[in-house]
């Protein structure tokens, strides 16, 4: 059963130069693999699920943290910063006062 699912899950999420394989949780930027921690991956996945939408910090925190790590909630900015550093500064855009959204894909909308 697991094998079948993996076979069907070969579809990859693409956002501009970013490639994400949800099955293997592999991220590639311009074809190069990028190493991300679990929480950075969760943040990226949440943004990739709704490209073009602004997600509030509350919504993102819900995705990234579990109940046990509530105390770390002020460190969402840190993970955004990590994503920008490891992938590309434009991969996450900040909408001040509202939240974060995935950066432009570089393709014409």
């Amino acid at each position, binding site marked *: 059963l697991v094998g079948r*699912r993996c076979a*069907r*899950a*070969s*579809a*990859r*999420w*693409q956002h501009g130069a970013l490639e994400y394989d*949800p*099955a293997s949780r592999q991220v590639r930027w311009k074809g190069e693999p990028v190493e991300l921690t679990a929480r950075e991956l969760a943040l990226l*996945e949440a943004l*990739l*699920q*709704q*490209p*073009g*939408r*602004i*997600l*509030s910090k509350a919504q993102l925190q819900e995705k990234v943290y579990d109940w046990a790590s509530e105390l770390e909630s002020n460190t969402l900015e840190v993970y955004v910063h990590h994503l920008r550093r490891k992938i590309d500064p434009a991969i996450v855009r900040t*909408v*001040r*006062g*509202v*939240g974060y*959204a995935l950066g*432009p894909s570089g393709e*014409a*909308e």
Partner: protein
Amino acid sequence: VSLRRRLLLYLLLSAPLAWGVALWFSVDRARHEVNELFDAGLIRLARQVQTTLGRPGGEPPAPAAVAEAASEGEVAAALGEADLEDLAIAVWDRGGRPWVADREGGGFPYRPQASGFTELELAGEPWRLYYLQSFDGAWLVAAGQKLYERDEMVSQLTVSQLLPWTLVLPLLLLAMALAVRQTLAPLDRLSGELAARTPDDLRPLPEAAAPTELRPLLAAMNALFRRIDDTLARERRFTADAAHELRTPLAALRAQWDVLRRAADGPARAEAERRLAAGFDRVERLVSQMLALSRLEASQPAGLARRPVAWPAVVEEALSDCLALAERRDVTLECEWPEEGVAPLPLKGDTTLLVVLLRNLVDNAVRYAPRGVTVTVRLGADALEVDNPGPPPPPALRERLGERFLRPEGQDEVGSGLGLSIVQRIAALHGLAFVFVELTDADGRPAGVRARLQRAA
């Protein structure tokens, strides 16, 4: 039923009817007068004869002379132009012997007790007789006249009246017909004008020139025209607005569908499906809100679903909708909230419509702002503002902002020009006033435009 025909019918019936009644009265009067005249003549004749017979000291004159004097002189004087042939006289003495009688007078019956007028038939013809006893009872005089003489006179009088009437009546009827036509001419013109109109020609009818009786009708019709015009305009506006407003969420649905297609089985796919379903919900909600809005426009802003507005969600949704355009135009979006402890614009309203409002404001700002600037949404305690550091619209344009389908010249972005009128309507429904404020920097130079929504005074 034609008014003209009915009016003509009434006039054509009532004129001869009135004419007939008048004729009957005048014939009646004429008959009365003629009777009086002829009766007076008979009485005078009878008295004349009595006087002649009773002349004191004199022998009774020869019967022939009596008849002669009576019929030739007195009677002629008494009766004027009347035909003497139809007059007759008879005289009896105390014993009832006919003393003198002319032609028909011989047929008069002797009635010793009679006095005054009586009518009877002689030789098949109706007569009117006047009996007069002399004072001493020596003589009984009867003067008589054929009745047809009177009828003839009455009918002659009648004809002499009838003739001018008969000649004038057609003229009168003709004049009435013309008058009716002339009077109803404004109605003809009105119906002609209405018949010549195209179905969408709802210009008001001129009231000032119309007759007083037509004015209320024209006013009512003009009011109806205005209502129809308003309704038509509203329908057209709704169609345009609906199309305009559906474009954005449909594009979002499309994007969510793309995500779903590339999603693998598992939680990610379930999430994508949930998102797509939520997108459909949103479109559905928007459609029903637009329908509600179109209905609300005709009536009062009551009936709106009013809940305390959660502005963060509204801003998030509206700015998300503008994100793609902002990226394309290299415009940064941001939102400023009031300081800690101050609630942003407390309002009860319809969240879906307020998202539409804010999206239109931001979309407008992003669309017409210069590249590379920041468009700021600002929520205060009593206002919602969208600042756009671009050059202000020229005054002539600002006056027209809010008109439908208005698009400033020289714009490279595609817009429908509906946005600001939608903003105004939704703002009005929520008791908010919508104004443009020109921003200036410290040196007084233009620094942008602010679209401001504040509680209406």
